[in-house]
């Protein structure tokens, strides 16, 4: 009898533990989503006029990569992505370039899924209109954050804000 009671207690504890674990995870997801909703509302005005999904994706990439950078630096990030699309050595679409395995940190850590703010959308539009502050660069990196030797060896074209743009 006593063993049975012990066992019941045991199982009960495990169930509680699992429930706690699951609910914690759900809660985490929910709070992230709530934050996104708020931000989305803020940007709604900007987003309503967006019927171009590719522009939206580009803008989200700009937002994730270059939030807080000067406007010119944000345009430059968008321009690099577009330069890659046009280049024979990279995939032919914005999605192809961004989701190329191991190419972008923002894809690996999911920040690309956050909605873009108006400045990022504006910067993306600017780049689509042909403004290229990077002069044809195909790579960019933050020298403080990368340990990639290969990318550091590329010929540098320009430095804008925290990013170095290279061919």
């Amino acid at each position, binding site marked *: 009898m006593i063993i049975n009671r012990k066992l019941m207690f045991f199982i009960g504890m495990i169930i509680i533990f699992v429930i706690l*674990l699951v609910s914690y995870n759900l809660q985490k997801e929910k709070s992230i989503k709530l934050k996104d909703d708020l931000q989305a509302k803020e940007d709604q005005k900007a987003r309503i006029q967006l019927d171009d999904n590719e522009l939206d994706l580009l803008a989200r990439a700009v937002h994730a990569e270059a939030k807080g950078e000067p406007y010119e630096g944000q345009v430059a990030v968008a321009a690099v992505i577009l330069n890659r699309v046009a280049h024979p050595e990279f995939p032919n679409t914005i999605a*192809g370039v961004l989701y190329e395995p191991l190419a972008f940190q923002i894809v690996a850590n999911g920040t690309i899924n956050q909605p873009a703010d108006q400045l990022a959308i504006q910067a993306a*539009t600017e780049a689509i*209109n042909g*403004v290229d502050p990077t002069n044809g660069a195909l790579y960019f990196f933050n020298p403080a954050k990368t340990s990639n030797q*290969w990318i550091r060896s590329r010929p540098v*074209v320009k430095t804008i804000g925290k990013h170095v743009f290279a061919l």
Partner: protein
Amino acid sequence: MQRLKNLLLLISILALIIFSLTQFYTRQAYQQQLEANYQRAFRELTVHINGIEEELAKIQVVNSVELQAEIWANILRLVYSAQANLGQLPLNGLNLSRIEHLLASIQDKTVDFTRRNIRNETQVEETTLTELYLQVKYVNSELQKQLAEKGQTANWVNWKNFLQTSMLRSSNIEPGRRHPLMHSLVMVEDGMQRFSNSDFPSETDRLQGTLPRGELISPQEAVAIAEQFLQELAAGKKLQVVNESAGSLPTFTVQTVTEKDPYPITIEIAKYGGHVLWMTNGRIVSQSELDRDTLIGLAQDFLARRNFPEMRLVNASSRLNRLFLDFVPVEDQVLIYPQQLKLQVAEDNGQILGFQGQAYYGLQASRELSPQLTLAEARAKVKQSENIQAEHLAVILNPSFEEVLTYEFRVNQEPEEFLVYINAKNGHEEKVSRLHSR
């Protein structure tokens, strides 16, 4: 009490075991899935390259234009798929430029050959074709061989790579930990050195030839040019060179220096020739208050005051309360599309926020602008000639990036509108584009 403690300890350990096991199996499932994705991409790549080889081999024997067209279409499909497969592989840091250039040049040539084939212009250059075929054949045979040898090894992904790429913020996988098939790709790439003639000009190379050129200017001159260009936009503001860029088109970046304004005007000046390549201003435009005609008038005014020649507005669209306008120069009544120039106007106060003029300065040339076909002859070549709304002579770039003189017809096909371009020399239908109304 002691028993309760022991029990709690036991529970915690068990919970930990369960937790770890779930984590382990989830990770393994993701890893398998990723593994399968990479495996599929590589195998599909070999299938598609094999297909390209086969089709290129056949085309050397096929005589009829119909069958050739069919085969070219198939090659184009296969090349596009192969390029997509390459994009799905974890190639970061791997240099496969020869293989990628080979695919790109097959694509370029396919478009080119198809056009000329159908028009019976000139026979396909057999040497280029043979050269491309030999290269593809080499890549194909190597990949097939490697796949047969190492295809069963399943370690595209391992946890160390996972750690390296997602946690340590570095995306280069050490060569020793790469999948053996990735090594084969590098080997094939190196092996392609033997083809001396592997440099076919690509799209980007061709555009490189169109950059503005001229005398070297000093930073002070750049500031003066910026001042002259901005005029009232920079009134009372100090301008200075804040950056410069190297590369194929060296530039000075000039900016307005303002302490409070978070959105300075940035203007890019070519070091050689001193042309204004572009100008941007990131100001957030809150509301549109002026109507479109007023804004267009302001834009035209802006160009006129900067001594641009006659310009025709060819496209206008609005986004984020900014009006985007495309202008093309008009020369002897002919629209010169390659020299397109873009402006952005703020819809709240009519301020010019953006300018893009690289093509305008880069493609200045003297052009032969007399058509050989009459308007009526060209009209007869348009499919829906009864729906033609407007017509014009225009210089455009064809898909091979050559300038051609054409008749432009605006065709209304409810509910959409199209621009149809008929070559003014030989009557070929050069291009059709759909007008986007926004």
